[in-house]
């Protein structure tokens, strides 16, 4: 009887558990899994001239992976995303380090607050500001012209991959600073003293103790910056003036302008696949730094 009672209790526990997670589960299925499945399904259909026919084939993928235009644009997206990630993390680390190690504890929260200031304005406005700064008749060019450093406006500071990287790096800096800051905060300061006590200089201690212990934050920062930037759509459109499309712009063209949803879907799935491979590879590469720390 006791046994029956027990299993009865177990069933009701499982049932109430399912009941408890069901809102989240329904949300996840409806809003994440279902759209994804739809996109994957679309990518396997045949489209063109606004028509979708139910002919399953891999032709879209063959087009995407062999077409030189798609390859070039995917490559540009990767270069921009890697560049932005590198610039952002390299700039964010010293800032996070400074706030964590050299700012008085009572003032840390105000520093973090200040770091989030860029979020106060819309991203569109920030992108336009960079256009104003870097443009042909922008702040940099007219400034340099007026003090006589240059004779004609610099071309290489606008409408190129560099300008894209600058704009995106600025936008994503807080996303990189915060996880690195958190991981630095978690480091027991006596570990740094131990490093010096055992004969290492401050710099060496940084390399052997601080950096490895903050790698979890660096990895988080890299993923947080890399994944959204590779699919960024607004920045190349505005800063690149339509001349520097990235993969998301290509999707937009196929989905909306050419109205070839299956091909657009195939681009989306391919991009997702590449991002997933890179992200997983990066995480595996840094496996020893993740987890296992208390």
């Amino acid at each position, binding site marked *: 009887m006791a046994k029956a009672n027990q299993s009865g209790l177990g069933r009701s526990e499982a049932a109430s558990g399912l009941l408890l997670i069901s809102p989240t589960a329904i949300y996840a299925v409806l809003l994440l899994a279902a759209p994804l499945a739809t996109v994957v399904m679309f990518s396997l259909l045949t489209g063109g001239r606004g028509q979708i026919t139910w002919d399953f084939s891999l032709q879209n993928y063959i087009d995407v992976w062999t077409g030189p235009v798609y390859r070039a644009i995917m490559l540009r997206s990767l270069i921009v995303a890697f560049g932005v990630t590198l610039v952002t993390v390299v700039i964010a680390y010293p800032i996070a380090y400074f706030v964590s190690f050299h700012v008085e504890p009572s003032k840390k929260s105000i520093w973090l607050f200040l770091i989030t200031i860029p979020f106060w304005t819309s991203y569109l406005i920030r992108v336009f500001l960079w256009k104003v700064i870097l443009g042909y008749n922008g702040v940099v060019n007219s400034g340099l012209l007026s003090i006589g450093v240059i004779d004609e406006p610099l071309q290489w500071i606008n409408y190129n991959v560099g300008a894209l990287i600058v704009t995106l790096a600025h936008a994503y800096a807080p996303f990189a600073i915060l996880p690195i800051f958190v991981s630095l905060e978690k480091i*027991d300061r006596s570990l740094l003293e131990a490093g*010096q*006590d*055992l004969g*290492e200089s401050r710099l060496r201690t940084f390399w052997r103790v601080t950096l*490895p*212990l903050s790698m979890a934050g660096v990895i988080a920062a890299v993923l947080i910056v890399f994944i959204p930037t590779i699919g960024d759509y607004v920045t190349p459109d505005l800063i690149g003036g339509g001349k520097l499309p990235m993969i998301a712009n290509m999707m937009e063209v196929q989905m909306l302008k050419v109205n070839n949803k299956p091909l657009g879907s195939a681009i989306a799935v391919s991009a997702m696949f590449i991002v997933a491979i890179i992200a997983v590879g990066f995480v595996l590469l840094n496996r020893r730094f993740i987890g*296992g720390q208390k």
Partner: protein
Amino acid sequence: MNAAKPTMIEFRDVHKYYGDYHALRGITASIRAGEFFSLLGPSGCGKTTLLRTIAGFEGISSGVVLLDGKDMANVPANKRPTNMVFQSYAIFPHLSVEENVGFGLRRDPRSAREKAVAVAEALEMVGLKGYGKRAAHALSGGQRQRVALARALILKPKVLLLDEPLSALDKKMREQMQMELIRLQRQVGITFVLVTHDQEEALVMSDRIAVMFEGEITQLADPETLYRRPNSRKVADFIGTMNFVPAQITSEGGDVVEVDAQGFGKVTLKTEQCMGKTTPTGASVGFRPETLTILFDGQTAADRETMATVTEVVYYGDMTYYDVKLDGTDQPVRISMRNVFGRPVLDIGTRARVAWSPGALVLFR
């Protein structure tokens, strides 16, 4: 017994300020080579700060710290011949046990193989043979402690600094580690400087102890002297239990002091039993609980005897603590008695004969 040993660490009038706060107030002391030295005091007394000035983690505002005869003023922590066992052990969580122990060997000119042997030996010395490949974060508190010890001792420092290394361990483990530290210290012969707030730990482990209060060393002596002849009521109170009864100095001359102590009557004390130089109002006589003995039927006092009434009994198994009022006093004093088979534990209210000896009394004035 250590008199012949040379000085390893010397403090000359060391002061340390944190802003307005005067953390170290003129520390002058020397620690001998090869001794087990403890800095004992309540939290905030400056003992950890003093230890950190030896390690080089804390600069000093004025004064001199000499290590093996060399002024440490401009020597950074990583260049000092000291190693530290941190209170939190500071085991690197991203490294394995052997990587932790071998951390300080990077610049060692020996080959990788010789270093691996040295690491294995160090682990064996602290009783962690075969633990080298374990992840550091998977260790228990006691094991971390041992790794921290091996990591420091493998570098053969002149001085090993221990910052409350046992405070995070449970009682059994702590007692075991105390014995182990004593054994290790004898084995390697390195000067150990221990910071602790636990008086018992200091008494058990140290050759000499510096008792600190409010940034000053109040008394520096071997454990026995510290226990039997504390130089102030503060030290007496901090180390073990001490009873105090009011006393009046009736005459002073030569090498003896005559006092009239409540409950004891007129007693002649040698000057070595008299602490403090000035005579403010209210001198007192102190004595340890075990220096008084309750006499049972048929026992006679070796020296002096007085009558008392038992007011409280606390039974501890091997010991019994009695609070008794000596005739002629109004505050009870504590007596600790070792329990002997067949002897009864007295009840509250019992009249008892108490044996005492003038030699066990200390006068504080």
